[in-house]
């Protein structure tokens, strides 16, 4: 096994560990940077159609143009899709979201729910 000399393999292991530590560091950093969101923003085909404050519990039926629907529940500062017309139910299976930047996507209904922070709220909405 001439290719795998001991000293070099030791360096390989050090490299692998260093890289995995870096990955953990990046992951931890991004997790810590996430902040509690203020709004659940509904986007259909890339265009924002509605935004709901996360501090008010609500149950909303989102109709999509293909006749489909997604049921959006806002509870305890988190947004979740609990039922939908789409066949795969990927959006229903996704966990409730509450941190800025998190998203739930429903490809069949072309609907995306994203969480945004308070600073991203439009001025006329606040006033």
């Amino acid at each position: 096994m001439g290719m795998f000399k001991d000293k070099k393999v030791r360096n390989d292991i050090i490299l692998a560990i260093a890289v995995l530590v870096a990955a953990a560091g990046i992951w931890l950093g991004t997790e810590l940077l996430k902040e509690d969101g203020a709004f659940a923003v509904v986007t259909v085909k890339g265009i924002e159609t509605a935004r709901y404050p996360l501090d008010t519990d609500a149950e909303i039926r989102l109709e999509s143009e293909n006749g489909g629907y997604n049921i959006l529940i806002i509870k305890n500062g988190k947004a979740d899709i609990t039922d939908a017309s789409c066949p795969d139910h990927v959006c229903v299976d996704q966990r409730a979201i509450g941190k800025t930047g998190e998203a739930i996507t429903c490809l069949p209904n072309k609907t995306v729910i994203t969480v945004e922070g308070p600073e991203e709220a439009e001025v006329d909405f606040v006033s």
Partner: protein
Amino acid sequence: MKTKKVAMLGLTIALAMIMSYIEALVPLSFAVPGIKMGLANIVIIFVLYKIGTKEAILVSLIRVILVSLLFSNVMAMAYSIAGAVLSLLVMWVLKKTDKFSVIGVSIAGGIMHNVGQIIMAVILLGTEQIALYLPVLIITGTATGVVIGIVAGLVINRFRNIRIG
């Protein structure tokens, strides 16, 4: 370029393409979206160690272009080229230091292939959000890099007394 070398490079490009084809047939994406084994990197590492750096660049780029045209699309080519170039660059640097075995070189190559694609995605899509995916791709890149590195090392070892290129 000598006839023997032309033949050898043609052979290795064909082999790298077959590896890409096998990978397209057996996707690993069900486990983690977007991940790949990087089977073609066995061939690239082999060329890097047994033939030469210039030849490895040639084989890598021709493979990416041909595979993109045959099995995917021109958009995917931009991502693949970014991954292939960064991967080969870092593998060449690590090999040159002579401090790592083929496994270490392969690990770096696997990770950098992913990093290159993410950088291209940030440039083309303008969303830094996708960089949040980096830790996952570093971990999978390390895992596949170890496997690919061991296989490539065994192949290179089999060829230790055979001069090619």
